Structures are given as C-alpha cells and as structure tokens.
C-alpha cells in the first residue's frame, strides 16, 4: 500500500504542484473561470425563479442547465488536457532535467505519472473550484449532491485518461507539436471514432442481413445486433458522460435504449456503465503510463533499437 501511495503521490508531482500553484497564471485563470461560471449561475437562477415564480421552479430548466454546464466542462477538459500534458516530458527534455531525474532511483513510470498528475492538476483544480457554484445551481432542481460528486469524479478520471495519452506521446516524440497532434487524434478516435465504428458495423451488418433476406436465406429481416461489440464504447468518455448525465436526469431507460439499439448486452452492464467504463479507462491509463515509463527508460528504448539494427544487419548478411 505504501508503495502504491508513494508511486502516486510522488516527488515529481509534489514539486510540480508547488510550482503550478505559484504560477500567477493559475490564480488569474481560476478567478476568470469562476467569475464567468458564477455569472452564468446567477443569471440562470434568476431566470429559473423569474420564469417559474419562486414557489414552483421548472425542473426541466435545471436539467437543461445541468446538461449544458457539464457538457461545456467536459469539452473544456477534453480540449485543454492534451495541451497541458503533451509537452510535459518534452519540456523536461528541453530543460535537460529529464536526464537528471533518470539518474535517480525514481522509476520512469513514476516520472510519467508525476508529470500526468501535475498536467491535469491545474485543470482539475479549476473544475473542483467551480464545485460550490455548480452545487448551488443544481441543488435547487432535481440534481443531487451525489450526482455532482460523481460528475467531479468523472471529470478527474477523464482528465487522467486523456492526459495519460498526452504524456505517452510526449515521452515518445521529441517535438511537443507532434505529440499534441497525436493526443488530439487519439481523443478524436476515442470520442468520435468509436461511435463511427459502431455505426458502420451496424449499417454493414444490417445491409448484410437485408441481402440475406433478399437472397431468400432468411425468412425475415433481422435487426443487426453487435452484442458485446458495443462494449467498444466503454473507452469513449463521451458515452461515459452520457451514462452519467442520463442517470442523473432520471432517464436511464433512454441510455439503455440507445445502447440496445446497437447491441444487446446484460442490463447490469448498462446499469453500471458509468463505473465500468470509468474502471476500464483507469486501467487503460495505468497501462499507458507504464508504456510511457518504458519509453523513458533509456536503456530499454535503445535495446529495442539495437535489436532492430541487428535484424537489419542479419538481412544484409543473408542478402550477401
């Protein structure tokens, strides 16, 4: 246990946290962000009270507000995290501090994790700082504190998940620009690509079934069902968001219907989608961090290269 906590709350993270907190940029960002959010919240509250008369507010308006605010914050995280993490290791490389860290007993994966935590730290701080405002707005309507807490958890996990790829690419590529591009590409694949794959698979399956019917092989047109194939969506944080929000809004059945449209899976998976997909994403993140650590280990990385060289030499020799 102590080993794990030392791995997670490691010196790199603590050091970075200190420097991040000192940065004046952060306090300005925090202020601006919360001012805007506060204004939006106040206006929204006013509108809600004004529209519905103080006694009986429309829960629908709160729902829409909740949907919008969480979506905005979700997008903010998705777009900001690559920018915050994709330069984390390359920056350390440029400053020549990476070499120093690598001569210490610090595990390369620990360095990668520290970098990730500090990369997402300021963003998560931003979101958490907005918690009181969100709570104020939502507790009036049908949203419970638990929902908001889960939402915060979701934001942290998403930041961790997306950020881990940023750190991996930052360890892999020397140029920050390149790693940023790759991180966004990964994000787009996770967010949109997985949906496209599911859609295309469904369409192709449907076409095939209709074809079979036309050929007289099947007596009726069956609905294409991807079955457990829809579990691919577990890696999509957007779907995680949807499962969370629909749950909070009391429209669980809608989420289950949409998923069911593409593939039939046991209901308990649907019911626990938020937790399961979060778990999957956390596991993937740790795996990605391990990979980033491998990339950072100078001896391992070069070993691989020299093996490739040896292979090349062998080819040359056999050609002779």
């Amino acid at each position: 246990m102590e080993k794990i906590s030392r791995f997670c709350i490691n010196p790199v993270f603590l050091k970075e946290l200190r420097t991040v907190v000192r940065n004046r940029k952060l306090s300005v960002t925090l202020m601006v962000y919360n001012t805007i959010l506060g204004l939006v919240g106040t206006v929204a509250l006013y509108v809600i009270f004004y529209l519905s008369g103080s006694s009986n507010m429309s829960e629908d308006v709160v729902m829409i507000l909740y949907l919008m605010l969480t979506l905005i914050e979700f997008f903010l995280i998705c777009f900001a995290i690559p920018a915050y993490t994709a330069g984390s290791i390359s920056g350390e490389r440029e400053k020549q501090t990476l070499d120093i860290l690598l001569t210490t007993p610090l595990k390369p994966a620990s360095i990668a994790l520290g970098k990730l935590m500090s990369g997402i730290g300021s963003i998560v701080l931003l979101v958490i700082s907005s918690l009181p405002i969100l709570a104020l707005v939502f507790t009036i309507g049908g949203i419970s504190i638990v929902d908001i807490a889960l939402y915060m958890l979701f934001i942290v996990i998403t930041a961790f998940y997306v950020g881990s790829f940023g750190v991996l690419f930052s360890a892999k590529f020397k140029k920050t620009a390149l790693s940023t591009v790759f991180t966004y590409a990964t994000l787009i694949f996770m967010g949109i690509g997985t949906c496209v794959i599911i859609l295309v698979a469904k369409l192709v399956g449907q076409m095939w079934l209709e074809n079979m019917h036309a050929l007289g092989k099947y007596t009726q047109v069956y609905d294409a069902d991807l079955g457990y194939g829809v579990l691919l969506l577990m890696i999509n944080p957007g779907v995680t968001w949807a499962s969370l929000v629909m749950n909070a809004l009391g429209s669980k059945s809608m989420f289950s219907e949409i998923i069911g449209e593409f593939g039939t899976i046991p209901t308990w998976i649907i019911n626990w989608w938020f937790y399961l997909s979060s778990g999957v994403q956390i596991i993937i993140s740790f795996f990605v961090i391990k990979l980033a650590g491998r990339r950072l280990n100078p001896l391992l990385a070069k070993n691989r290269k020299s093996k490739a060289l040896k292979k090349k030499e062998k080819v040359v020799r056999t050609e002779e």
Partner: protein
Amino acid sequence: MLEIENLNKSYGDFKALDNLSLSIDDGELYGFVGPNGAGKTTTMKIVSGLLAADSGQIHIAGIDARKDIQGLKSSIGYMPDFFGVYDNLKAIEYMEFFASIYGIDGRAARKLSLDLMELVNLSDKADSYVDGLSRGMKQRLCLARTLIHNPSLLILDEPASGLDPRARFEMKGILNNLREMGKTILISSHILPELAEMCSSVGIIEHGKMLVSGTVDSIMQKMNRSNPIVIKTIDRKDELIRKLKERPDADNISITEDEIYVGFSGDDEEAARLLSDLIADGFRITSFAKEKGSLESVFMQIIKE
C-alpha cells in the same frame, strides 16, 4: 573506482565511441579532455546509465554497471552539460525535491540540503528562486544536488564551461574540497587549461578514441621524450650545428638567435653522452636542457598527430 573496457557506441552509421577504455583509481580527479564532438558526453551518459552502449564493460567500484542499474545509480552523481532549471522553485526546494526522491523528507531533508549548499558556498541563496541565480550559482547548486545521496563517483560534464574566471576558480576550490572528502571525480572539458592544474590524471579523447590516458606525470614524461633539446653556446655555433647533423640520433635541427633546437631520439643516458661529447670537442656550452613541455603543448601535439 571506474573501469571502462572497450566501449563502443554508434549513432546510426556514425561511430561515436571506438573501443574506448579508461580506468580511474579511488580518489582521483580525472580530466576527460577532447574537442567538441569527441564523445565525452556520450561516454559519461553511458557510464551514468542514460545511454546504452553497443558493447563494452563498465565496472564501478567492482559492480557491473550494465547489469546492476540500481547499484550504479546509488554510486554515481551525474551532472549534465546543461543545467536545467525549474521555474518557480527556490534553491532549497530544488534540493529538497531531489532529497525526497531519495526518500529523505522533512527536517532531515532541510538539514542535508543546507549542509550541501554550504559546501558549494550557496548558503545565502537558499531562499532565492533558481531561475534568478547566476550561471555559476546554478552550476554549483546542480553540483550540490549530485551529492545528495552521497555517491562515491561524481561524473561532471563540462562543469566549467560558460563560467567567468572567478566562478571557475570557485568551482575548482569546491572540486578540491570534494576530493579531500574522498570522492572520485570524472570531469570533462574541451579546454585543457581548465583542468590541467587540478587533475591527477587525464585522458585525451578524439573521434571516440582514447589517445592517451594516465597520470599527469606519466603523460608528461612520455611526451617530454620527444621534446627537443635546447642548447646555448658562447661561440662556434655553425660548427656545433655541423657536428650535430653528423649524429644519427639527432635531427630536425633549428636555430633561433642564440639557441639551437635539436630533435633528439635518445634517452637521458644518451643525452648525457651527447653533452659530454660536445664538451670534449671543446664547445663552450652555457645551457643544455630538454624543453619543458606543458600539458597543453602535449595536448596540441597529440591532437595534431
């Protein structure tokens, strides 16, 4: 302390290290000298475990550095050729950060950090931000950082480069102190005079090859051999030159206003015989000496060859 045997390293087709060997005894201050691009940084990175060699052996205090990475990390302190600064961090925090990496926290970390900063004359800068320190101070802070885990071998890549003479002088003093504390130090430079006075041994590297390596004295002796003998005489200079030219062990004779330079291939014994021969021939010689070489002239001579 450090034994490197037949180290080879290529970057693609470029051979950066070519069968490089060197050996450093306990407590030595070893100067690793060579022009830019000779392969000094490459060697030091390999020794520090930051780069994999293609082949070769490295032993540090008896342990196989290529197998026991943790053992290697605990016995060396590495300082790269560029000093990296973290923004928004105070000097003392920089030290404490590295202390915490080694599992030293709290009061112990603070005490150790302050002690080490005192060792490198930075006590008064503990609460200054690192990015505001001068280059020499950053360099010394970085040196203090390498000492946190009390390593026995320090690997310092061009610690004096870019320093003004005063800072360089200060750095020298600190290195001498460290040596007195029993540290073994491997230090590189592309400028020999930086190291000449303080090193006990030097290795001269070019194009990834070790040209000479050994104690300063032994290198000087070896090289002095090929230094010319300088002869001064009161008169009969031309006759003396003719006489010298007849001898098989003397060549390359050149003359300045009052001195004759003779390239002499014999050893000291034969040089003594030459002198007595000349005196027997009645030459009135006022001075007869081997030109004293400096480590620098040796360096230039080796690089030229």
